[in-house]
């Protein structure tokens, strides 16, 4: 397939999935819809995360900071502003924070970058907690004006579609190529003319904008928010886990993994809550060890490869147990000795 055919295929798949998701509230139970909402939230968060952090390999743990900033913007602005403007405002505030944060940390790489983004997230969370306690004199905020459930669902769906569509489109642009170059070898990309600082800041801000918008839309679901719910670092970790398990370098990986996760989360958490975190950890270990490309890299060949590996392993064990390995080694030794006679 040519690049254009890939683009058309990806957009068609996205269009199909969107149609299915729009129709969902019409026939599914309330439980299924609320599950789908969580799922869409993580699709938006991890797709946008993978778009920047996956391609450039700048592992950011700041998603929960942007999410929380969006949620707070929404909590403050919802009484005076219409819904759409609140969402856009959440995105803009988060992006602005990302630009400032980026200026401070984007020259660092690897572990230092990850740890610093996490540190800044905690800093923001505690700063807002402190501000709430000492200045406003409250712990959290109650959201009085809350839009319809339907509106929330459609907004988050729209954000998820935007996140995936951006991932589809950006990887075909000059900007996307620059991100790829930064991921492959940042210094080489610079010597080939990429202004990496601007590209990185823009990519980071874009990711943050989507996380902020999602936070703004999701905050109303709780009706009462405080820094510890919306700046919950678990949101950031889960976003990263989903992207890694799905395949951070792939387009559909985060989406596939987000679906798998939400189903796991909702079914396991209700029946055996302890098993949920355990299976999450297990899934991450397995995917890092056996599927470094993520769930999206699964092909029939992968299964065939596993089957062959297991078969080979099983034959070895059988040979060992039946003494066949020993006999084979003796035969080889004898053959070598015969050759040395001459």
């Amino acid at each position, binding site marked *: 397939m040519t690049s254009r055919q890939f683009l058309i295929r990806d957009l068609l798949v996205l269009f199909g999935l969107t149609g299915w998701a729009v129709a969902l509230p019409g026939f599914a139970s309330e439980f299924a819809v609320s599950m789908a909402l969580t799922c869409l939230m993580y699709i938006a968060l991890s797709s946008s995360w993978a778009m920047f952090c996956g391609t450039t390999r700048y592992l950011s743990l700041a998603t929960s900071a942007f999410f929380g900033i969006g949620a707070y913007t929404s909590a403050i602005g919802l009484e005076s502003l219409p819904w759409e403007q609140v969402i856009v405002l959440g995105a803009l505030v988060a992006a602005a924070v990302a630009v400032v944060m980026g200026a401070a940390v984007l020259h660092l790489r690897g572990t230092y970058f990850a740890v610093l983004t996490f540190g800044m997230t905690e800093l923001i969370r505690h700063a807002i907690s402190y501000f709430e306690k000492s200045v406003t004199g409250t712990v959290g905020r109650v959201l009085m004006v809350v839009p319809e459930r339907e509106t929330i669902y459609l907004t988050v769906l729209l954000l998820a579609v935007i996140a995936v569509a951006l991932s589809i489109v950006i990887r075909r642009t*000059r900007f996307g190529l620059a991100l790829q*170059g930064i991921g492959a*070898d940042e210094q*080489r990309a*610079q010597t*080939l*003319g990429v202004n*990496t600082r601007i590209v990185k800041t823009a990519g980071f801000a874009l990711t943050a904008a989507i996380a902020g918008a999602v936070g703004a839309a999701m905050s109303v679901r709780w009706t009462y928010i405080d820094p510890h719910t919306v700046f919950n670092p678990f949101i950031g970790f889960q976003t990263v886990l989903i992207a890694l398990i799905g395949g951070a370098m792939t387009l559909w990986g985060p989406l596939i993994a987000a679906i798998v996760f939400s189903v796991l989360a909702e079914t396991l958490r209700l029946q055996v809550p302890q098993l949920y975190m355990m299976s999450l950890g297990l899934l991450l270990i397995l995917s890092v060890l056996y599927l470094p490309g993520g769930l999206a890299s699964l092909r029939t060949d992968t299964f065939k490869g596993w089957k062959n590996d297991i078969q080979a392993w099983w034959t070895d064990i059988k040979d060992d147990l039946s003494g066949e390995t020993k006999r084979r080694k003796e035969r080889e030794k004898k053959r070598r000795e015969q050759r040395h006679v001459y």
Partner: protein
Amino acid sequence: MSTDAKQPLLDAQEVTVRFGGLVAVDAVSATFMPGELVGIIGPNGAGKTTFFNAISGVTKPTSGRLTVRGQQLAGKGPHRFARNGLARTFQTPRTFGDMTVRDNIAFGLKFAGRRRRKYILWGEESGVPWVLRTADSILGLIGLSAQADLPAAAITPSQQRLLEIGMALATRPRMLLLDEVAAGLTENEVEEMARLIRRLRDELDLTVVWIEHAVTTLLRHVERVIVLHQGKKIADGPPREVVRNPEVIEAYLGDEMNDENDESRAEVTA
């Protein structure tokens, strides 16, 4: 190129690079004129690569001035150097392994292309040699057309070196900085590489600065050579003169007197 022949392409003045207490490059000044083919030699640890990193913007010099066609670039990011027509290769090839060979070339075309602004204004890339206009013609120039669709990680090390040069060419440079492009190649491959470099200089009107550890090869092909020793410039001139320079002989004798250097001196002075 229509640039003023008197204006140097790159004027490095008193460039110093310090790593903590170590002075890797000590107040080196050098001027590079359009169309020159200059070699840089020096014993191990002489500061060749560090000087290279400084004049391509990869390492910020501690002090000194770097004037590229009248513009002051010292302390600016490497992309500014690339956009002003300075392209470089790396000692160990740093190609984008996951991308195809063609995409590796296309990368430079997309970003540096010094005629970008003109391209937008006039609708055509005026002044860019036709051979540098598309990835495929660059591949033809460096002789990698057959490997165009292979991932860059899959080609041989000597092809990787050619690809490095191709990636640098894709930025439509005025000046090509080559860091040990002939290291680890067979004798035939080295000759071919040298021919390619001369051809690039002649046909594309490039200034070429070429670092090589193997002195013999280099002295045979360049017109001017700069000798670095312990971070300082100790000689600058035509190869014939430089190899007779007592200070240069001293530097190489004091460091390591191997057959290769001996041979090269005999050959060039003969």
